[in-house]
């Protein structure tokens, strides 16, 4: 494995992590389950690409600024669409919401397939990749994203979302506006997915509607569940592991996805709470544990 290859996978993990963080808030902390986030990623990818390629307002030397602008706009466009979708579907219960988001995600892909402005099914090639989605940029964005998510989760709003996850009816009785908080959660996750889309487009250099199929959404949700619902550090670890796993298994070629499928089933049976099981990884508790073990020894 060359260094470039490892950096490539790290960038890919960082991009996956963006969406996974949003999904962690939506699924892990608010208890909503979405199959449509590939749609939000697609919206982000196409918006960011359109801005960097067709609305170049900054000079060549300021490419990074243009890139960041594109990402933020991509996030906001995604968020706007999510507000519309949320308004229509967030009143649905359980699996009805799942299937509605599935329908939304597929609909976005089919619309992009047919719009010639976005290149139709052939997609958009020649997206600038130099100096845009670099490892440094991805790390900066991911760090900001993780910090924001942790702040949101530990705020009053985050606690309201957790209350909705635990018991929707009880949350409503103590005066939490369930619909509003579901909406906020969906909007934030869509914002993250939009930025991830922008990063992805500028990493690969081309985008096609077929890249945003249902399997993309499910893969990301699997990462969140694998790491453990209700745990940000779990999401980070799960995303890293599951992005690396198919790459490590690449020498098995066709069998790698078979192993991937079996691994998911195994972890659901053996450790259904995911790797972190709703707990956060904290350096202080880590040291405390070590300390405690030593005490027992002495």
């Amino acid at each position, binding site marked *: 494995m060359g260094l470039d290859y490892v950096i490539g996978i790290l960038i890919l993990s960082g991009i996956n992590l963006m969406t996974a963080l949003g999904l962690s808030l939506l*699924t892990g902390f608010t208890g909503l*389950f979405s199959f449509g986030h590939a749609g939000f990623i697609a919206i982000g990818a196409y918006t960011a690409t359109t801005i960097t390629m067709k609305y170049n307002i900054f000079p060549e030397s300021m490419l990074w600024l243009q890139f960041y602008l594109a990402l933020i706009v991509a996030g906001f466009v995604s968020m706007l669409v999510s507000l519309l979708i949320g308004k*229509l*579907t967030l*009143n*649905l*219960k*359980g*699996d*009805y919401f*799942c*299937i*509605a988001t*599935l*329908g*939304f995600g*597929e*609909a976005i892909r*089919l*619309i992009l*397939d*047919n719009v010639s402005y976005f290149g139709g099914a052939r997609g958009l090639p020649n997206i600038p990749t130099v100096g845009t989605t670099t490892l440094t940029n991805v790390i900066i964005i991911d760090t900001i994203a993780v910090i924001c998510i942790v702040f949101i989760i530990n705020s009053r709003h985050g606690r309201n979302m957790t209350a909705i996850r635990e018991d*929707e009816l009880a949350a409503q009785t103590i005066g939490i506006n369930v619909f509003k908080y579901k909406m906020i959660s969906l909007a934030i996750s869509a914002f993250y997915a939009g930025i991830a889309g922008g990063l992805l487009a500028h990493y690969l250099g081309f985008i096609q509607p077929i890249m945003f199929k*249902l399997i993309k959404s*499910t893969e990301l*949700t*699997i990462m969140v*569940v694998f790491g453990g*619902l209700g745990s940000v550090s779990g999401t980070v670890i799960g995303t890293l592991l599951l992005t690396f796993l198919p790459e490590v298994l690449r020498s098995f*070629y*066709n*069998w790698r*996805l*078979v192993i*991937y*499928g*079996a*691994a*998911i*089933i195994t972890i*659901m*049976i053996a450790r*259904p709470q995911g790797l972190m099981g709703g707990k956060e990884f904290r350096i202080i508790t880590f040291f405390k544990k070590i300390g405690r073990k030593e005490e027992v020894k002495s």
Partner: protein
Amino acid sequence: MNVFLQQVVNGLSIGSIYALMSVGYSLVYSIMNFSNFAHGGVIMIGAYLGYFCLTQLGVPFILAIIMTAIGAGLLAVSIEKIVYSPLRKRNAPSLYFLISAMGASIFLENMVIASPIGPTFRSYPAIFSTTPIMIGNTALSRIDLLMFIISLISLILLIFIIEKTKVGLSIRATAFSIKGSKLMGVNVDKVIFIIFLLGGLLAGIAGMLFGMKYTVYPQMGEITTKSFIAAVFGGLGSLPGAVIGSILLGLIETMSSAYISSQYRDLIAFTLLIFILIVKPTGLMGKSTEDKA
């Protein structure tokens, strides 16, 4: 007018295939309250089983369809035993079932790609002549008629089992309340075994018929998204709803590809899905609005 009639028959035959799939999905949902994403894998394996029965073993068509159904039924049951039953014993939330089901579907799909069968598209041998049957001026394709008739027979058999037999009674009771039926002495494990067997049998038949009309390939499990949509149209967990929703979806699809554009066919179906859910959040025949998840 003739074209219209032909499209109606087309729509009915596609719709009846969707019905076979969504009924199996709905049966599982009605008792276990989760979307069984592994259903697509069972349908795909069924299509391959039918293909190999016809080409390698060279058995007659009727025998092939029975063997396929049994094979797919056994597969569905073993998925339940290996994947879902450990979760069920622990009373895991439905989300974990959903994720395991997706894992199983990824596993099955890539198993076929990695095995000697490979990712190539295969088409069934021509068993029936392609000359259409003429009724008046309307040409009806033989395969469409066959699909419709076989689906109809299977669905009638299923409804007979559910409505008239003792096993069917215990299925209905368990769908109503698992706890209550357990107290009344219903063996819930056996009921779950039977619904997976029934769903698998129908999925096998659906896969084979679908493969005959189009082609067989490892990703064909994706058509189950259509059957999910059909089931939601009708209301999750309701069998008549699943059948009506499927026929409706089949008709809408063929009509929109005939009169609007085949490119927008799926888009129209998905848009309609969201629209129906906005107007009637529990589908056309859905019973409860209670969140069971």
